């Protein structure tokens, strides 16, 4: 993340990293505050980005503010490196920040993500940037921002459990399967963005720095490395993650988050890893093992 001042880098006519230096500075200030108060939503002056809201404008602004020439960027969307949104954002930073890019989780210094945390455990020094649509976990029940801010300030979080209560009353179990509320560092209740609750345990004591950017709502929040992140639950209905009866049809993994893929009009389907990079690693490993046996 070294500072770069040379104007000739990146696309001509744009400042390095697309955003102007004053904006980057403002975002970095917000990031510092967010890291200092884990889980607290820091307002920031979100800029117009060359993409519509909902496509990751918050995440892109954070990445633009922290990226430097020494960084390697990986972008995933629903776990995959090759989906439209992931490809466009990667290309964007290639052209405006001369960024080196990768699809390998461990090679990346910055990983911008939508909807997933990579299956490969992240390491100290890496940064995970989340794209967040609705940063306020209390919003569904309390529409007033003045009131939700007060609820956060005074730690009045009983209402979050009402949501989980409603789930159990209606479905017999906690049916919330994504954007599952967490308590960060035993203080702030936080929406972990629409990642599946399968990924919630990965946030706890994660070695990497986690940054969250909501472009439309203009909020930034963060979880510093090695921070306690607890998923909310009831004593008699403890937090559980999704499980599948199948394994990945490509790599055979049994402990990853699987996507159901419909194969044809006859309703044939298969389950595959949503993390494409992890899936390929597993396939490569399996080949090595097979070759050693032959």
């Amino acid at each position, binding site marked *: 993340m070294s500072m770069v001042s040379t104007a000739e880098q990146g696309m001509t006519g744009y400042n390095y990293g697309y955003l102007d230096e004053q904006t980057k500075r403002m975002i970095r200030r917000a990031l510092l505050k967010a890291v200092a108060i884990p889980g607290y939503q820091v307002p920031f002056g979100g800029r117009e980005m060359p993409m519509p809201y909902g496509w990751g404008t918050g995440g892109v602004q954070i990445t633009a503010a922290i990226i430097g020439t020494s960084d390697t960027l990986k972008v995933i969307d629903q776990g995959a490196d090759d989906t439209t949104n992931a490809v466009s954002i990667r290309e964007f930073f290639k052209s405006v920040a001369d960024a080196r890019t990768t699809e390998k989780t461990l090679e990346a210094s910055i990983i911008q993500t939508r909807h997933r945390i990579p299956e490969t455990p992240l390491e100290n020094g890496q940064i995970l940037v989340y794209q967040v649509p609705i940063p306020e976990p209390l919003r569904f*029940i309390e529409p007033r921002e003045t009131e939700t801010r007060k609820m956060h300030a005074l730690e*009045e979080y009983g209402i979050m459990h009402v949501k989980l209560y409603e789930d159990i009353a209606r479905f017999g179990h906690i049916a919330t399967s994504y954007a599952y509320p967490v308590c960060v560092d035993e203080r702030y209740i936080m929406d972990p963005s629409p990642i599946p609750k399968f990924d919630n345990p990965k946030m706890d004591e994660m070695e990497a720095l986690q940054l969250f950017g909501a472009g439309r709502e203009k909020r930034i929040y963060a979880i510093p490395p090695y921070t306690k992140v607890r998923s909310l639950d009831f004593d*008699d209905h403890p937090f559980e993650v999704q499980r599948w009866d199948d394994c990945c049809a490509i790599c055979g993994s049994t402990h990853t988050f699987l996507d159901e893929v419909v194969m044809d009009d006859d309703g044939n389907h298969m389950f595959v890893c949503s993390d494409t990079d992890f899936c390929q690693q597993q396939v490569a490993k399996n080949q090595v093992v097979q070759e050693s046996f032959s």
Partner: protein
Amino acid sequence: MINPSMNIDMETPLLSVRELTMLYAPGKGFTNVSFDLFPGEVLGIVGESGSGKSTLLKSLSGRQNPDSGEVLYVRGSGDQQLSQLADLYKMAESERRQLLRTEWGVVHQHPMDGLRARVSAGGNIGERLMAVGERNYGEIRAVASKWLSDVEIPTDRIDDMPTTFSGGMQQRLQIARNLVTSPKLIFMDEPTGGLDVSVQAKLLDLLRRLVTELNLAVVIVTHDLAVARLLAHRLMVMRRSEVVEMGLTDQVLDDPQHPYTQLLVSSVLQN
């Protein structure tokens, strides 16, 4: 059930109001209100529209900062050592809000103002329990179910939305939601307004029973003198931001002293 206020000292007031004033504009609000409220006592506030009844109730219940004066409340358990006198508007906002959802309750005139429309009846009752740290689904549900039957709502409607309830049921649900943490003091703003007379009568019966069983102290605002006579031990008559008369309910209604109270009492339709 254990009566939470069993060992409360009946000699010391639960709530002491001293020269409380809050005016939005001259004549709009209330001035110089002082009274003591004892455990288990029901105080009625009557008066014409715009006389400051509701504003007074808001200030008493910590939802509207007064211009001057103080609201003193005996916090904590009935044990003399543990309880302490606290000024409502000098304590931290977090403490005040904590008080409001544990030891106090507020029943609004329109039940949907006090209920969460998109949360089931059970969730509405359970909210206060979860807010004070209850984390066992089974227990929350059992308590919610018990309270539904206590306020005469069929327990099989526990998962229905309050919007599907009738007005009277919504009002009873709102009362249950407030009583679930065994509060000591309840504020009610026209709890029977907008209900037809037979439903009103049932609700009043229910309120009378709960007040006696739980030894609740209640401040009730109403413009219905019949409701006041039925529920209130003491009555406060307000007019143009001022308390014009105060005394035992029967005394005020049967032998009104102030000309306005005389007018008020004589205006009631006689059968």
